[in-house]
C-alpha cells in the first residue's frame, strides 16, 4: 500500500521523520534497527548535542566512525562516553532522565498500546514474536516514545492481542492509574503517515500523510474508526542532506532498501 518515490525509499522517509522527533540536546534511548539510523541522522544534522543511550550499557554522544547494523557493533563501543551495565542505563530511564525513545511494533491499537509478543493471544498463539526486549521499559518510563511500524489493517487493531508495551491503555488517566510515572507515545510513524495522540483521551489521531497517500488509504488500512486532525499536513520528504547521511551510514541499504 505504501507509496514509493523514485528519489528515496519509504524506509528513508520514515527514518528521516523519526530523526526529526529528536530535539537538540535531548537524551535519546536508541532502539534496535531503524532507530539506530534515526539517531545517527539526527546527530549528524539538527541534533548534534543529543546523547544516545543503548540498553546494552552504552552511552555515546558522537556518531560512529563507520556504519553499524547493531548497537553491539564495535564501532558503537569505540569512543563511547560510557560502557557499563544494562542496570545503569535502565536507572537513567527509570529516573526519568530519558527524553525520548524509539520502538518498532508488530501490532498497535487505538490508544498506542503495542504488541511484540503474541499474535492471537498468549494462550494458543498463532505467531510468537520476539518479545519486549527494552520496548516495554521505554514505553513505561521514557518522557515520550515514538513507534515505528508498517501500516497494515492486521497490525492497526482496535485492541492489541497482548499488551507488551504500554501506550495510553484504555484511554485518558490510565497510565497514572496503573502506576506508570510519566510518558506515553508521542507519535506513530508508519508507511502511510504520522499519527499523534489526543492529550485528553489518549486516542491516536492522523496528523500527517506521507507524499502521495490519501486519508482514505489510511482509513482503509486501520482497524478502527480513526480520528483525523483538523489540519492534516504532508510529511516532508527527506532532504538531500539527510539522504546523504543515511546513505553514508547504511551504504548497503540494509535498513533503508525498498
Amino acid at each position, binding site marked *: 500500500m505504501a507509496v514509493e518515490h523514485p528519489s528515496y525509499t519509504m524506509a528513508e522517509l520514515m527514518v528521516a521523520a523519526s530523526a526529526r522527533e529528536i530535539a537538540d540536546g535531548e537524551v535519546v534511548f536508541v532502539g534496535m534497527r531503524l532507530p539506530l539510523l534515526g539517531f545517527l541522522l539526527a546527530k549528524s544534522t539538527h541534533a548534534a548535542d543529543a546523547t544516545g543511550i543503548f540498553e546494552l550499557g552504552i552511552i555515546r554522544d558522537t556518531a560512529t566512525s563507520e556504519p553499524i547494523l547493531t548497537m553491539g557493533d564495535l564501532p558503537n563501543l569505540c569512543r563511547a562516553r560510557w560502557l557499563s551495565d544494562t*542496570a545503569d542505563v535502565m536507572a537513567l530511564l527509570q529516573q526519568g532522565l530519558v527524553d525520548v525513545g524509539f520502538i518498532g511494533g508488530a501490532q498497535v491499537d487505538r490508544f498506542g498500546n503495542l504488541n511484540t509478543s503474541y499474535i492471537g493471544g498468549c494462550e494458543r498463539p498463532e505467531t510468537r514474536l520476539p518479545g519486549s526486549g527494552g520496548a516495554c521499559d521505554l514505553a513505561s518510563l521514557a518522557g515520550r516514545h515514538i513507534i515505528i511500524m508498517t501500516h497494515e489493517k492486521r497490525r492497526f487493531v482496535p485492541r492489541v492481542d497482548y499488551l507488551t508495551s504500554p501506550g495510553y491503555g484504555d484511554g485518558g488517566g490510565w497510565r497514572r492509574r496503573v502506576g506508570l510515572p510519566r510518558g506515553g507515545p508521542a507519535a506513530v510513524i508508519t508507511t502511510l503517515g504520522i499519527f499523534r495522540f489526543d492529550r485528553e483521551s489518549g486516542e491516536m489521531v492522523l496528523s500527517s500523510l506521507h507524499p502521495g497517500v490519501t486519508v482514505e488509504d489510511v482509513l482503509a488500512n486501520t482497524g478502527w474508526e480513526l480520528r483525523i486532525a483538523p489540519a492534516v499536513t504532508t510529511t516532508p520528504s527527506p532532504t538531500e542532506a539527510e539522504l546523504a547521511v543515511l546513505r553514508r551510514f547504511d551504504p548497503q541499504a540494509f535498513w533503508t532498501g525498498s
Partner: protein
Amino acid sequence: MSSSKLYNLADAIERFVPHGCTVAMGTCQESLIPFAAGHEIMRQAKRDLTLVGTISDMLFDQIIGAGCVRTVRASWVGNVITGSCYNFRRAVEGGSLEQEDHSNLTLTMALRAGAMGVPFMPTRTALGSDLFKTNPGLKTIACPFTGDILCAVAAIAPDTAIIHVQRADEYGNAHLWGNLGVTREACLASRHIIITAEEIVSPDVIGSDPNRVITPGFKVSAVAHVPWGGHPSPVPGYYNRDHGAFLDYRNSSKTSADFARWRARWVDTVHGSGDYPALLGEERMASLALRNHVWSEAADYGC
C-alpha cells in the same frame, strides 16, 4: 586460589550444565555471546534446560532447535538484524516450550535480586502490561514509604552462568570489556560460572587491573580456552561482528530440515577448540579483524 580451574569446554559443560538446570547466557546481549559453549550444549544433547537471558541474538534459537530447552525466561528471543527466529517460533507455536516473559529491566532486576540475595526487586516498569499474565514472577505492590504502585520482580538465581571474555587466568579471574549488559548480575546470582576465554593469561596480567575483573574468581567453577568462542557476535579487542553469519542463519533455519543441515555443518563438525577457527577459515577471520586499534590509557595500581 590454590588449584587450577582450567577445563576443556566439553568437560566444563558436562560437569556444570546437567540436564534440567537453569543457565544464563548471552548476558552482554549482542556482544561476547558464548556461542561455542552453546554449541557444546547442543552436541551433548542436554535436556530440559531453562535458559535465562535478555536479548539472546540467535543463540537461544539454536539451543531450542536442538531440543535442549524446556523453559525460556527472557525478554527477547530473535535475531537482532533479521527479527523473529524460527526454532523459537516453531517450539512456542507447537506448544513444546514454556515461557516467562520479561522486559530487559525486569530480567535485569530478577538477576540483580538473585545477585543481592533478596527475593525480589521493585521497579516502575511494565505496569499495566500483559507481562503480568505470562510471568508469575511479576506482581504489583505498594511502596511501604510512598504508597506508589510498583512492579515487584521475583529473583532469578541460575544454576550456571556461561560468559565469554577476552582474557582469563586459570583460577577464574577474568577481564571483560565493552558493554556489560547483565553479566555482573548474572555471575553474582549464579551458583556456578563457566568462563570461555579468547586467551588464557597469567594471573599477573589480570591482577594488573582489578577494576576490569568481571566477577570474583572464587565464584568461578571452570575456565576454558576457546578462541573465536564468541563468533559471530563481536568481541571487543578481538573481532568484529560477522553480520553474514546472522543473515545465513535466518535463511538456514526456516524449516527443521534446514536447521538440521545448518547444525551438521556449524556445530556437529566441531570437536576440539581448533576446529571452529579452521571451519571459519583464514580469510573470513581476517575480514573480521580490527582495522584500527584504540588502546586504553594505563592506570597505575602501585603503592
